[in-house]
């Protein structure tokens, strides 16, 4: 039995004459979708799998599909004769373009057998002389494959061997996804052994020393693994000491290490290549002079065995000396190695004669965190989920480690400047990840986030782009948008379109046991992001932002700043900054009264309708009264118009309930009902008791400015409590209240028993309030019958999608994900809002 070793990701070319059994072999060992057959592609482009004139187009299409598969990291097998050098060259090119290994499997059978098989197939019309030519081509092929770039060549001779062959997959060396850490990732050491020792000790490592008191290993009581990003050697005082320690740790399984360009150069020198002794290599060579030759040869072996980069923690972490762009992660090719060791250069040199590096991190959009060194920087900074932790220790800077997954930076200062830098350490331009690109948000986009996935249609994104760029606040400050909220299932109770019984039933059906009924304030949604420092927080200059549910500045200046000051004072007075350990808070609130923000809408839309109705109907009634007095049969019409008159009066009362005079912020109040996030934390997992308690404390701190939210916590199994809550709702709405929102008590991130997200809230609006939504006479029985046909599915789906995106945005805010990623989520919420949904729901 022959075992064929294949990399998990490879482009496999089957090579063999017609009738050698390639397709059978492919069927036995690979998934049908992994196999791209030239016959199938000929059929696809020309309706005939034997049409040789279609070969060029067929291979074009085959290469294209192979490229797509390899781009996505999928093993691909090409079932074609592959006997011509140019055909194989095409495959090698596709493999190289995607940095995967090309592999050949040659199937060799006696010509007689191949001819017998070919003849047996009715659809093959090829002549014996063609087969003979193929055989000649095959014989020539053996010597060529390796030269052509095939990294592995397997030859199976004879039908028995082909029959018995087995495939065994081998992982790439860089694939260490099974290692989940926790890790201490350590930046460029450059022979600074003393600083490395101090850093390890500060990180909690215990050093183990040999008989000459030299550290040769280290262990961490919490079982952490050290990861070295390379450039252990050169320039510094004790490169051999650093190597001894790191090699010991790696050998003992306490550390892993990727090579830096300095190790690469050292190895070439040790192998006797002509390498100039610059950039600190001279120092290393001098230090190694003092070491026994066995040590030097161990160093050479160690460096030679280093793998260009590692993919760790299930693919969530990538470590490479100079960083690695997304397309190269987990791939193996010369250029991947070159990128990992040297980074990408623009081909230019700067005024110090050093190569200018292309800022690949600025364009990085991958999901894996990339940790790297190579370029000394005074202050490590996260850029699009990548971080460079080379803080120039050897140049008198610091030696830095990143704790992963904690994402905590720990560093020790250099004992001195060991080596003069060729150019001064300068700070990277401030916050380069604030740059957003059109491609981050436009077009049809599929978004996966921690709470699900969705596709944003291109036209919704186009609409959102206009709103976002013309009206919304700065994306850095636009951290979250409130999801739309579905109403409860439609009530069948007489006179009601919405009723608490349905809201309770909806949640009971989802397996929820306890809900909170919160008074629904009738104002304008206001999202408040307030920083402790009025002059600037982590989001850029400014002390915060107040925005509407579509991300617009709330009132504009100076009122928004005034409002923020007021909130900031209350948060301080309530002691929340210290208690929550945060420098900023994101609050979900309703700003009251409605007329403060929506005055124009109320006048243009609601009052105008009221004025027209109030004036028209008395005149209509008077005319009908007189006609009736003349004995005309208009009694029914007259009664109907009388009812319209009552309805328009009720309608006017309904909108008037939400009008209060305000001047500036005088008369304005804020009703907070959720505290969504603060420094490093999303509070979406806290229950609503917690949220409302904090809201109450803000109200207590400034009772004039904050309005409390009346509520009831209800156990859905407790019939008496349900009845009491219903009465409470009836009283609330009879007094002019909009209604209530029922929420799972467990909090915004509550999930059902089956683990899916629940509707974060279900609104249940009052009878009178609904007049301004559905029209003054919506509760006429016939109208109600029609309105009860409303369908809620779309609205509910939308609410859930937006909610999931919002939760992911909050997590991203807490976890410090790059701006483009956060913005992409918030943008998607806005794009969802352009989905056509009945606006009355």
């Amino acid at each position, binding site marked *: 039995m022959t075992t064929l070793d294949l990399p998990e990701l490879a482009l496999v070319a089957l090579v063999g004459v017609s009738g050698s059994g390639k397709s059978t072999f492919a069927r036995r060992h690979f998934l049908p979708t992994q196999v791209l057959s030239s016959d199938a592609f000929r059929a696809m482009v020309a309706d005939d799998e034997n049409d040789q004139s279609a070969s060029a187009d067929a291979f074009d299409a085959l290469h294209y599909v192979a490229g797509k598969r390899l781009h996505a990291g999928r093993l691909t097998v090409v079932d074609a004769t592959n006997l011509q050098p140019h055909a194989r060259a095409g495959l090698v090119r596709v493999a190289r373009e995607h940095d995967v290994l090309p592999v050949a499997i040659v199937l060799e059978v006696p010509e007689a057998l191949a001819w017998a098989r070919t003849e047996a197939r009715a659809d093959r019309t090829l002549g014996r002389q063609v087969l003979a030519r193929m055989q000649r081509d095959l014989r020539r092929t053996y010597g060529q494959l390796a030269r052509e770039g095939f990294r592995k060549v397997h030859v199976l001779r004879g039908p028995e061997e082909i029959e018995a062959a087995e495939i065994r997959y081998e992982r790439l060396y860089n694939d260490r996804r099974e290692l989940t850490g926790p890790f201490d990732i350590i930046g460029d050491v450059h022979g600074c052994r003393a600083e490395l020792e101090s850093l390890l000790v500060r990180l909690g490592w215990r050093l183990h020393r040999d008989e000459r008191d030299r550290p040769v290993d280290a262990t961490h009581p919490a079982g952490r693994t050290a990861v070295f990003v390379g450039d252990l050697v050169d320039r510094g005082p004790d490169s051999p000491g650093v190597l001894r320690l790191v090699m010991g740790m790696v050998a003992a399984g306490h550390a892993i290490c990727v090579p830096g360009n300095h190790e690469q150069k050292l190895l070439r020198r040790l192998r006797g290549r002509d390498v100039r002794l610059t950039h600190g290599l001279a120092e290393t060579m001098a230090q190694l002079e003092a070491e026994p030759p066995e040590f030097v040869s161990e160093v050479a072996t160690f460096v030679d065995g280093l793998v260009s980069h590692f993919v760790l923690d299930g693919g969530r972490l990538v470590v490479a000396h100079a960083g690695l762009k997304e397309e190269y992660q987990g791939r193996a090719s010369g250029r991947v190695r070159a990128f990992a060791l040297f980074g990408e250069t623009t081909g230019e040199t700067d005024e110090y004669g050093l190569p200018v590096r292309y800022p690949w991190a600025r364009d990085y959009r991958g999901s894996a965190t990339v940790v790297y060194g190579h370029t000394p920087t005074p202050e490590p900074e996260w850029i699009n989920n990548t971080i460079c932790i080379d803080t120039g220790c050897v140049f008198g800077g610091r030696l830095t480690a990143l704790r992963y997954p904690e994402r905590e930076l720990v560093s020790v200062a250099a004992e001195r400047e060991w080596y003069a830098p060729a150019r001064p350490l300068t700070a990277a331009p401030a916050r380069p990840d604030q740059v957003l690109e*059109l491609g981050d948000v436009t077009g049809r986009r599929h978004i996966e986030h921690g709470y699900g996935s969705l596709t944003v249609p291109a036209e919704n994104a186009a609409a959102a782009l206009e709103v976002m760029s*013309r009206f919304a606040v700065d994306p850095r400050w636009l951290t979250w948008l409130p999801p739309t909220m579905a109403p409860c299932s439609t009530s069948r109770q007489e006179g009601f379109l919405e009723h608490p019984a349905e809201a309770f039933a909806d949640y009971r059906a989802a397996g929820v046991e306890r809900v909170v009924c919160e008074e629904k304030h009738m104002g304008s949604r206001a999202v408040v992001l307030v920083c402790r420092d009025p002059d600037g927080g982590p989001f850029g200059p400014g002390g915060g932002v107040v925005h509407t549910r579509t991300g617009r500045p709330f009132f504009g200046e100076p009122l928004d700043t005034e409002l923020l000051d007021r909130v900031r004072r209350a948060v301080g007075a309530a002691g929340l900054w210290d208690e929550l350990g945060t420098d900023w808070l994101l609050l979900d609130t309703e700003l009251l009264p409605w007329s403060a923000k929506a005055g124009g809408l109320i006048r243009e839309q609601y009052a105008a309708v009221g004025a027209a109705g109030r004036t*028209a*109907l008395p*005149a209509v009634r008077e*005319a009908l009264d007189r006609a009736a007095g003349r004995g005309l049969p208009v009694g029914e*019409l007259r009664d109907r118009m009388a009812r*319209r008159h009552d309805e328009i009066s009720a309608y006017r009362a309904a909108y008037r309930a939400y009008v209060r005079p305000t001047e500036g912020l005088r008369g304005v109040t804020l009703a907070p009902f959720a505290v969504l996030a603060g420094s490093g934390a999303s509070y979406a997992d806290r229950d609503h008791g917690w949220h409302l308690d904090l809201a109450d404390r803000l109200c207590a701190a400034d009772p004039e400015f904050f309005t409390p939210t009346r509520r009831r916590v209800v156990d859905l199994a407790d019939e008496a409590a349900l009845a009491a809550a219903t009465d409470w709702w009836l009283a609330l709405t009879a007094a002019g209240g909009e209604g209530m929102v029922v929420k799972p008590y467990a909090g915004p991130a509550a999930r059902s028993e089956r683990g899916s997200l629940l509707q974060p809230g279900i609104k249940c609006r009052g009878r009178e309030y609904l007049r301004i939504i559905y029209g003054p006479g919506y509760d006429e029985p016939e109208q109600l019958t*029609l309105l009860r046909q409303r369908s809620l599915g779309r609205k509910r789906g939308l609410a859930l999608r937006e909610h999931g995106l919002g939760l992911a945005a909050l997590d991203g805010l807490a976890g410090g994900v790059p701006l483009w990623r956060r913005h992409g989520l918030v943008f998607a919420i806005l794009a969802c809002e352009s989905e056509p949904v009945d606006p009355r729901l």
Partner: protein
Amino acid sequence: MSGPRPEVAPGPAKTGRRKIGPAATIVGVLLTLTTTHRPATDLGHLLIKHPDRAHSFDVPVGTAHVFYPEADEQSCTAALLLEVDPLRLAGGRKRGRGDSPATPETFTLGRYVNDRPYAASSLLASALAKVFRSALRGESRERAELAATPIPLEVRVPVLRCRGGAEVAVRVFGPLGWTVEATAIPLDEAYPEWGDSRYVDLRLTGVQRVADALNHLYVLLPVLDDAKHYWVAPDEVEKLLRAGAGWLAGHPERGLITRRYLAHRRALAGQALARLAEQRLTDEPVSAEIVDDGTDETVPRRPSLAGRRREAVLAALAESGASRVLDLGCGSGALLAALAGDRRYAEIVGTDVSSHALTLAARRLRLDRLPERQRDRIRLWQSALTYRDDRLRGYDAAVLMEVIEHLDPPRLPALEDVVFGHARPGTVVVTTPNVEYNVRYEGLPAGRFRHADHRFEWTRAEFTGWAERVAAGYGYRVRFAGVGDEDPAVGSPTQLAVLTLDGPDPGHRDPQDPPRKEERQ
């Protein structure tokens, strides 16, 4: 391309009477017509509706009722009450033959909670035309002579939506011989500070033929409303000319009436005005008659500032020697059209954040009808000036014409990065209003901007300061100019800056183009 969707599909006019259940309807729009001609009850003959009966007619948006609150020898009043079914108005329910493809999802809230059921003047006018069809034509079998005779009439519309206020009602009805009494209706008596609504209680008295009165109402009610409930199709021109026969051609406000009736469709309005002019056979220039009713956007004087601005931008572009150019924030493509007509521009890209604007631009440029070679020079892309867009890199010049003032000031640094840092064209032409000049605009209240969407308007010093800072920060040189008549005290209405990328940049310059002097100043 189809025009905007009609608010209500006109649909085939239904015939016959239909029994309307009480629930299907909501509320009434009322119009009464009273005469004191003796015997007043002859009004029934003129309208061809018996005073002692109640009449009901099915109309597309509900039911029209005709009844007589009074009918005696001295005085007779006919009332037309239109009961509007808001669901049919919104088109949300199936209307029998499935001629309503719209679903509730496509409506805005305003289409449900709106004033049409109480004040829908254009609905009332179409009901009038249907119910009193013969009377409108002046036909009366029983009283043919009376139909041709002016009689004392009083018309009352208790709630009439009247754009521009009661004064406009006087302007349009007054010249026709009516005594006009239009009383503004307050928005909400509980909030007197809200002021008046857009409705008036209209009372017209005069001595008129009934047919004339009805035709006046048929044309002028929708004109005052100024929000037609259906899409204005070309045959509206015919309808207008027919109903306006004999009185519209000589009406001093015929420009206003025509434009509003034809819902501001310039092409239609122009057509109608031209034909009215033929009817009058006078030498008066037609265009001079298009007076503005004060609520439309200001009609620019010739040569318009927009035109002069465009000329100035084109001159700056030509001077830069650019051949591949970007019009950032191109709107509906007025500048693009000029660029497309100039062979020196090999590639013209218009970008706008609004896809609707791009649709308009494509239509203006007739992109779908251009020959391929022409078409290939022009590209329209949706892009936002607050997001980096790789497609915009490598162009010779970019225009930001009246764009920056539409951005909130805190977002300007993003625009600067996107345009000057990332796209980095060789030349950037920027124009923006000069706020100092605003005092020269009559009718522009102090402190108000020229356009509702302007987020700021800058003084000359502010614009200069901004452009110089941007130029210094991104390695450009800058020169300034004014556009429009320069006022010694407040400068020109529009300010213009040309920023040129510093240093040798052969890729962006025609080598045959000599260095320009003003750049060295």
